[in-house]
């Protein structure tokens, strides 16, 4: 089963940290990614640029509407993701709990819709 771990967090928090704290935080993510890789569970992952760099597009009444900013404006923004392959939901939840993002934000676990 494939699951997408979506990391939601308050971006302001990271900006407020000291450089050492930021470095520590990045190192924790590095180690987490490494552990996922070692376990053979990692399919892909990325950190996303801040929500301020986001642009949304939709077509309303045939007209393309382009808006500055993220889709949902909330304090906690989507900041990154891990795509993993594990046997079942419990295994996915265990990985989500180990993710540093679960300590300073929320990790959402979504199964991938298998298209065969």
């Amino acid at each position, binding site marked *: *089963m494939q699951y997408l771990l979506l990391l939601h967090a308050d971006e302001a928090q990271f900006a407020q940290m000291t450089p050492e704290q930021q470095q520590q935080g990045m190192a924790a993510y590095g180690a987490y990614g490494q552990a996922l890789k070692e376990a053979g569970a990692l399919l892909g992952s990325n950190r996303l640029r801040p929500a301020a760099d986001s642009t949304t597009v939709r077509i309303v009444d045939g007209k393309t509407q382009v808006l500055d900013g993220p889709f949902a404006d909330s304090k906690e923004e989507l900041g990154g993701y891990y795509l993993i392959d594990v*046997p*079942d*939901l*419990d295994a996915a*939840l265990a990985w989500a709990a180990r993710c540093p993002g679960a300590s300073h934000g929320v990790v959402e*676990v979504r*199964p991938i819709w298998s298209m*065969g």
Partner: protein
Amino acid sequence: MPDEMNPSEGGEQARLTAEAVARESYGKLVAFLAVRTGDVAAAEDALSEAFAAALTDWPVKGCPKNPEAWLLTVARRKSIDVLRGKRRHEAASEEFEAAAAILQSAPLEAEIPDERLAMMFACAHPAIEAGIRAPLILQAVLGLDAARIASAFLMSPAAMSKRLVRAKVKIRQTAIPFRVPERAELPARLDSILNAIYAAFSEGWTDPGGVDAARRDLTQEAIFLARLVAGLLPKEAEALGLLALLLYADARRCARRSADGEFVPLAEQDTVQWDARQIDEAEGLLRRACALGSIGRLQLEAAVQSAHVERCRTGRENWVEVVELYDGLFALARSPVVAINRALAIAEVFGAEAGLDAMPDAGGDVRLAEYQPYWAARAELLSRSGADAEARKAYEIAIGLERDAAVRRFLEKRRSGLSS
């Protein structure tokens, strides 16, 4: 001699056998299929088709020697057909093929393994909405239909049915595992199953008059489930505690109403009417649970019941002990329900005013403001402390919140006893 049976006799026999198997084996058969396919709904469908086939087949050919195995063989074949059909029509063919292969290779000889516990852990998984866990267990393990569960949980059948379907889809689509969790995780996960069973019992308990058969039976179904879990996990103290607790409560069923249907409070119940056999069983379970040395909320609640039984039977006051048990409970679970019962016990030892001081505050807590026992307890303590006007107001609210007519009459009698 099946071929000598006349059709009506055979039909009756087949129906009785099918009913007996349904009662004993339904959950086992659903679990066998669901554990191997990850799909509770499909397992239920396959099994209901198998039962339908039995009712047409058995009256003609006679009941099979091993009805359970017969049903499983048919249900398994139906499941494989459905999985193969899905493989053709839907995209995720590999998974369906794998599930079909697992089903086909599963051995069918001798005893069918009991995997109901694994299925209950899937139904009570933290990823499943808490409010639907008890209905889901009742349906998957006992085969109760959505309409019956809905009426017990005061919900519309359509809404209940929709939520059950959604939960089963989530189990399948997110691959919630069907297994007993690891040692470290077990207590927390088991708690969720025990809570679900307790909730089912409580829903059934709210109809003490036994007017509504669907609700009354639910207490028996809950005891069946608690017995099942306690039997499968005999070293889990809280599982034993739950069964003890439910047996204590159920033992007093008959005594809760007078011959003319009036509500009888615990202190005035005729202890001879209590089911002594059930109480003995509960006492034994509680002793076994305590010997395991891991105290928990359900064991403490059962211990409170044990103390009530002891006091009512012997007439020896033991409210100090009860207060201590409630202190322990309150330290474990700071629930307002525990706080209310603790306050009532405190009043027995230290007087009504001390009890009132220990009552939780309903201001700001909407659930408490709508909780009948809170107002009934408040009214009782206020009236004992002589605050009649306030007591009258609290009785008024308690009566307005009560759905059992006999309890309403009891509260009205108490209210009219106040000096005006």
